[in-house]
């Protein structure tokens, strides 16, 4: 048996493959993305990115109905989008095993909220596995497929960022023979969820959960470890590993299945320890569930949000703190930023200058909200920009300012089309900017329907975005290269002045896709008047010399996009020569 260093995401993909899953489908979202990418590279599988998580789960439902084993991947907020099919698939159950990876982001490293997907498992009554490292991620995924088919139900695997993006050694197994699903037979009582059939399936779901309840009491997925019994800690996922490191001598009940919960086992564990605690992050899902069983539970003083670490558990248990050097809290923060040469930058520069009310969306361009661009009023969820712009225009409080929605190409395909249809249908106005950088950038460059790049490089065709937008009935549509700053300004001025709804497609590839970088630029010290116009672009290659107040360009970062050249009224930004190097300047 070979061993390999795998991330939790990779291990889940490998587990699905070893279980004989032949299809994988999902939508990229940190921290889930690499799972489907890794799966797609394994032999004898079909994998595809769907435009959104709802479609992905529906594709998977079809695979399952036809008898195939299928893995679905998404981040926590993706399950909100997929919630509609998800709840009803608990009723229909499965034919081929259907396993959904939902990757949560406690601490919000790369997300707009911190929702705890364990609540979804309890809400829909779908079993949930929680691995605590890569070895379990692989093993639990295999078992999830078995359980899915044995109990006729989809299964959730909950990962968190520290499972998905931590690597450890995993023993690799062979792939089990892909099961022949046999010929397909129509089964409306199981799959046509109109009320008469759904009522029967609802009762059947109760029976299935009851049988799972019995199973989880005895399952090795849930494990008691008795050490010092003065304190017992119930935990799951990566929190188990944190507890083991923080308090190696205490007793633990490690839950690998967090829905349904093993009530008898919990009661038994509680009776054998003097004090019972729960250690969990993001939400008090386990604590609430245990208290609702009438089991007495004490509370550790852990933060109610954000991530848990071994140190926070040690503090909560009042263990002595390690000897600490004081943290330096005076340092300037280092927020993420748009890359040098990013095609989004001129759009936000123009929006700020136009004093627009900007409803934003999810993607790299959300960084347009940060200084110095500071040109975004909202960011809520995938596709929200368009509906919110329409809604804001209905109130009349912002009439003196243009209302502009900003959305990326992949996000528009994900959830923007219906919003735009709504605005057209209801006679809305305003301007929608589709920032088409030809890639799903923030999650690490995935294909999407608007660029026609598929996960396994099958031939495809890209959506004709202009035709789509026109077909929805948008009267004014134009395409603009965002690297031309004057054209960006004019387009935004004209379209926001128009009384009709308009769409501007700003089309230029992500700076990271551009292989041929232009020659770098530098600042001519004699011509620079210290006006700061170039610095307001927020390009990480441009800085202000704190001694001279002149602009300086870091030639090692500059990609020669010429955006700053266009904002300089004094022709002071020129092809670089000696003396223009950032490193020669005094920034301190």
């Amino acid at each position: 048996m070979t061993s390999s260093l795998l991330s939790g995401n990779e291990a889940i993909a490998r587990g699905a493959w070893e279980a004989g899953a032949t299809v994988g489908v999902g939508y990229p979202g940190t921290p889930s993305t690499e799972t489907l990418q890794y799966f797609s590279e394994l032999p004898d599988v079909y994998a595809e990115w769907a435009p959104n998580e709802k479609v992905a789960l529906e594709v998977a439902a079809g695979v399952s109905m036809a008898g195939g084993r299928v893995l679905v991947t998404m981040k926590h907020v993706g399950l909100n989008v997929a919630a509609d099919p998800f709840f009803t698939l608990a009723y229909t159950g499965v034919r081929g095993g259907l396993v959904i990876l939902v990757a949560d982001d406690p601490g919000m490293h790369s997300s707009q909220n911190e929702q705890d997907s364990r609540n979804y498992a309890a809400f829909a009554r779908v079993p949930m596995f929680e691995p605590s490292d890569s070895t379990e991620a692989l093993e639990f995924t295999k078992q999830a497929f078995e359980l899915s088919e044995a109990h006729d139900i989809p299964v959730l695997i909950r990962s968190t960022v520290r499972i998905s993006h931590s690597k450890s050694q995993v023993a690799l197994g062979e792939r089990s023979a892909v099961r022949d699903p046999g010929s397909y037979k129509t089964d409306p009582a199981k799959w046509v969820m109109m009320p008469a059939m759904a009522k029967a399936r609802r009762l059947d779901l109760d029976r299935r959960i009851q049988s799972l309840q019995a199973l989880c009491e005895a399952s090795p997925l849930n494990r008691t470890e008795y050490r010092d019994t003065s304190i017992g800690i119930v935990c799951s996922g990566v929190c188990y590993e944190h507890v083991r490191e923080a308090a190696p001598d205490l007793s633990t009940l490690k839950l690998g299945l967090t829905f349904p919960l093993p009530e008898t086992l919990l009661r038994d564990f509680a009776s054998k320890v003097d004090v019972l605690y729960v250690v969990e992050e993001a939400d008090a899902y386990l604590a609430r569930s245990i208290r609702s069983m009438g089991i007495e539970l004490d509370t550790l003083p852990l933060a109610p949000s954000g991530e848990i670490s071994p140190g926070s558990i040690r503090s909560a248990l009042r263990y002595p703190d390690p000897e600490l050097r004081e943290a330096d809290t005076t340092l300037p923060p280092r927020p993420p930023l748009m890359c040098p040469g990013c095609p989004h930058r001129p759009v936000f520069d123009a929006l700020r200058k136009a004093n627009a009310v900007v409803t934003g969306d999810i993607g790299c361009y959300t960084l347009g909200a940060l200084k110095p661009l500071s040109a975004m009023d909202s960011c809520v969820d995938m596709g929200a920009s368009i509906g919110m712009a329409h809604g804001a225009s209905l109130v009349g409080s912002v009439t003196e300012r243009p209302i502009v929605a900003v959305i990326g190409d992949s996000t528009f395909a994900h959830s923007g089309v219906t919003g735009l249809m709504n605005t057209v249908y209801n006679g809305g106005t305003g301007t929608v900017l589709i920032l088409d950088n030809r890639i799903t950038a923030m999650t690490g460059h995935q294909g999407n329907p608007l660029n026609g790049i598929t996960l396994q490089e099958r031939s495809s065709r890209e959506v004709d975005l202009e035709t789509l937008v026109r077909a929805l009935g948008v009267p004014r549509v134009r395409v603009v290269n965002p690297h031309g700053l004057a054209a960006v300004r004019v387009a935004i001025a004209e379209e926001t002045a128009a009384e009709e709804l308009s769409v501007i497609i700003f089309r230029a590839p992500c700076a990271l896709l551009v292989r041929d970088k232009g020659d770098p630029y530098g600042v001519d010290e004699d011509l620079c008047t210290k006006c700061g116009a170039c610095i307001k672009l927020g390009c990480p290659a441009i800085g202000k010399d704190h001694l001279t107040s002149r602009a300086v360009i870091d030639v090692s970062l500059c990609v020669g996009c010429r955006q700053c050249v266009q904002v300089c009224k004094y022709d002071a930004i020129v092809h670089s020569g000696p003396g223009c190097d950032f490193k020669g300047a005094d920034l301190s």
Partner: protein
Amino acid sequence: MTVTTVMLCGVGGQGTILAADLLAKVASGHGYAVKLSEVHGMSQRGGSVDTVVKFGTQVHSPVTDPGMVDHLVAFESIEAMRRIHYVRPGGRLMVNPSAIQPLPVLTGDLAAPTGLNAILAEEGAIFIDADELACEAGSPKSANVVLMGALSVGLEFDQELWRTVIAGRVPPKTVEANLRAFELGRQACQRGECER
């Protein structure tokens, strides 16, 4: 059940993830249990990043806490200061002494921190001019591997194991430059007080 904890910190895009991957593979090749924890996504776009590698006979948590890091390798001096409290007393602090100013400093909204390298030196930092050595090695992007070369002095792993892992992990065209970078990092460290 001793666990060694290494934290690599820097600015998104500096190659901390690849460096951590090399270290994890080397520790794994040596026969240790390994856990590596990194963060992808939004912070990778030029933000402040860190990656943690822990190895030993058994490793539980993939993350670490202030005061618990045995070796902090900072790819940039502001990020070194930001995480200096993670180093345990007697732990090792290795710093690439170049500063990449954060955007609020570049735009003139905040003052650049001053005297960082003096403070770091007082804290016992070992400075490795990784940018310069990377250029000397033939690839400016190999600064991460220069730092792994420096880190390798004072860790117990076999040099040949490092070289095999590097050769198998970096882009084929850059293998030679990266192996040179590793060697230059080692030499730089041997000149300093690395074996603590």
